[in-house]
């Protein structure tokens, strides 16, 4: 135990020096870092949102709305299918997971099933087929039901969340937030972390808007003030407020869809100075837009966003260039936000913010200061005790403790782990826990010395006897922290990470490194008694 081959000595020193070098970029100023090569300057600890300031949002995709949309779609298509197949029905009802059709003539049940079969989409399978339909269609007397299968629901949900993440990413990118983290969490959630964002209001508003835009004709035959709409039309509120009408009766048929937009930008109308949003369609959209405007000159055309009419300008002439303008008494910010939403595209389902944690940058800076202060004071106190209790061997332990902090920092930097405020608490706590190894060893050496062993014998026995205890006690801590890491959330994970690293590294610093120092000292000074 006491003999160190030369290569081992060098290896131990090399690890310490390398660790110190790797942890250095954390302490250098921005200017110095800029002069260093990227791979080196980049090995820094990521500061968590609670230290650097920023906003953490947890969003939930409204899966009911996703399924509801599909069911609504089924009702519409079922109506068309049955009509073309000349099958009479008394009612089509939308349920939670499917539709129920009441046939006028039960004898037509088989035909109805056949007619509804094309409504099913195929999911799974590859180019050679092998997928399965997402609808389970059954007839029971005069009642035909089409139910979405379990697999279909899951498939829908997966699609919806993946699409949502993509749209969320695009919207956030548009706002210019640096290094956002956008990740799926569980089945229906999206985690969004926005460093440096102090007031996430605007982003919350952007993400909370579905931004489903449609262009539809206004039903000129109905009076919106009655609040009733003829079949095929619906009454929609207007966003314009007092200036114009409160609501419009709008045809349900979508003439042009927002999905066909290619670009949208905010600008001002040179004549009125009003804020407007300029948009541009892709080729399909442009063709449709041209057709509709050509056929409906001098009729109002409603621009509908999330079931609210933004404006309903009268078509003065056919618009064939695929470009248009929305003016809806916008503010500058309103026009910009709408442009962002249109560029990024519509969400497949509404998103809800279900958790927000925001920390201002000055609180983050305060926390860093408090953390550094705590670690420094803690380190000094622990070292003072070790020196008072064990003299020179205590000093060895203190040096090992310092190297422990440095190596922990180096490990976190290399893994680009995130350091949180609880993480700093973890570093502090691991100070106390890792000197435990040295206390065990020193106490053991002391006991062995009292039993009358010589200098080398006592050292030998002290290390070997204490070692199994050290391994035991550290392993239990590591098991706990692994559990905390798996089941903990957010900042708490940081606590588990730093403490685990601290403990694992202490197995090297507090035993191997300290042993090397003690042995070297023994060889050099050849003392008659150990200073414990």
């Amino acid at each position: 135990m006491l003999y160190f081959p030369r290569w081992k000595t060098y290896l131990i020193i090399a690890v310490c020096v390398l660790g110190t070098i790797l942890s250095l970029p954390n302490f250098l100023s921005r200017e110095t870092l800029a002069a260093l090569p990227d791979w080196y300057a980049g090995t820094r600890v990521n500061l968590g949102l609670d230290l650097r300031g920023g906003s953490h949002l947890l969003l939930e995709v409204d899966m009911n709305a996703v399924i509801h949309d599909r069911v609504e779609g089924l009702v519409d298509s079922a109506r068309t299918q049955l009509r073309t197949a000349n099958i009479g029905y008394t009612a089509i009802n939308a349920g939670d997971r499917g539709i129920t059709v009441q046939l006028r003539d039960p004898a037509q049940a088989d035909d109805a099933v056949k007619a509804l079969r094309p409504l099913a989409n195929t999911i799974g399978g590859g180019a050679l087929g092998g997928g399965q339909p997402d609808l389970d269609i059954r007839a029971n007397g005069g009642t035909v039901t089409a139910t979405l299968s379990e697999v279909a629901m899951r498939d829908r949900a997966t699609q919806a969340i993946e699409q949502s993440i993509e749209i969320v990413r695009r919207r956030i990118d548009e706002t210019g937030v640096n290094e956002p983290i956008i990740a799926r969490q569980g089945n229906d959630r999206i985690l969004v972390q926005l460093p440096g964002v102090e007031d996430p209001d605007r982003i919350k508003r952007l993400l909370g808007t579905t931004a489903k835009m449609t262009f539809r004709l206004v039903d000129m035959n109905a009076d919106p003030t009655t609040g009733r709409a003829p079949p095929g039309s619906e009454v929609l509120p207007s966003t314009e407020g007092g200036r114009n009408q409160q609501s419009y009766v709008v045809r349900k048929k979508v003439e042009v869809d927002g999905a066909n937009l290619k670009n949208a930008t905010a600008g001002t109308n040179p004549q009125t100075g009003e804020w407007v949003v300029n948009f541009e369609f892709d080729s399909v959209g442009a063709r449709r837009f041209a057709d509709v405007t050509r056929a409906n000159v001098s009729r109002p055309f409603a621009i509908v966003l999330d079931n609210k009419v933004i404006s309903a300008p009268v078509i003065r002439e056919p618009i064939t260039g695929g470009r248009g303008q929305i003016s809806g008494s916008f503010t500058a910010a309103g026009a910009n936000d709408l442009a962002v939403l249109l560029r990024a595209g519509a969400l497949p389902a509404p998103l809800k913010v279900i958790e927000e944690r925001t920390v201002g940058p000055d609180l983050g800076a305060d926390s860093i200061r408090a953390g550094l202060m705590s670690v420094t004071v803690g380190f000094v106190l622990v070292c003072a005790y070790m020196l008072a209790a064990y003299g020179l061997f205590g000093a060895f332990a203190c040096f090992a403790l310092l190297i422990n902090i440095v190596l922990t920092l180096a490990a976190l930097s290399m893994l680009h782990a995130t350091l949180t405020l609880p993480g700093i608490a973890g570093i502090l706590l691991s100070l106390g826990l890792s000197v435990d190894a040295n206390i065990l060893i020193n106490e053991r050496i002391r006991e062995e010395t009292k039993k009358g062993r010589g200098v080398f014998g006592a050292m030998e026995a002290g290390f070997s006897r204490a070692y199994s205890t050290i391994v035991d006690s550290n392993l239990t801590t590591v098991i706990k922290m692994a559990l905390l890491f798996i089941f903990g959330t957010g900042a708490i994970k940081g606590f588990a990470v730093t403490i685990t690293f601290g403990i694992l590294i202490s197995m090297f610093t507090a035993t191997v490194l300290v042993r090397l120092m003690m042995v070297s000292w023994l060889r050099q000074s050849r003392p008659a008694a150990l200073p414990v």
Partner: protein
Amino acid sequence: MFRLRLVPDNTNIQFMRGRYAGLILSALLSLASIALFFYPGLNYGIDFRGGIVIEARTPQAADFASLRHTLGQLNMGQVALQEFGSPQDVLIRLERQPGDDAAQQVAADKVRATLAKEIPGTTVRRVEAVGASVSGELFYNGMLSLGLAMVAMLVYIWFRFEWQFGFGAVVTLLLDVTKIVGFYAITGLQFNLTAIAAILTIMGYSINDKVVVYDRMRENLRIYKKMPLRELIDRSINETLNRTLGTSMCTLLSIIPLAIFGGEALQDFGIVLIFGIFLATSSSIFIAAPILLFLGENRLRRGAPAAEGAQQPAPTP
């Protein structure tokens, strides 16, 4: 040469004399803690109950009366205001708002807007708003990790030591954990995710301590084959006393700055850990060791044939 010793070297305290007192006191405290858990109960933080916490810094010393009045007018249930750090720093806590998860967001935004309007120059330093479904899951996961940690410890000790040690360690842990919960109930400290981390940390620390004492007992069981178990346990505790107290001291020293400088989030954590260190240190001596004594030495020495024929006094009084 001066050396700081927390206890003199040849200390020989007969801890096992206090075995009944220790166990009974501990059991009573734990029972009281369980009672406190049900009434008045824990002060659950927003992690587990949902709700809103806003930390604001006002330009001048905060006027709590007017602030309470202004926020009270928003009709958002009970508003708790708390000063911390400096007179300008206010912690605003709102109960979980009725409605779905999104209702918390709406309420938080409303408070933000009101603060900006009523006290210009106020900076909102921190906002946390947690809905019911999230808080429910956080609570479930927190409890799950506590339960699993308990099982993992049991399995580990069981493999590593004889079953008597495992049993002793787990009973001690249960007694420890209930008392920490009781501590939360008495002090009214926020019981949140940090509390789970604190409990896990104390559990880990407590087990650490037991492992060291048990290790020594096992070693002594091999060395002193004829020594009565009671004497042997006392001897083991005394031998490791300097280490036990030394490590407790060091951990304490590293935690104290946290309780002083840690800010709102870590202060509570530091305070609970300080309590936990005292708890874990005393339970190693007064709980874990007596349990081992009660479980009997015959069984612990079954594997050592040399002790078979030796006269052994009954392990019970």
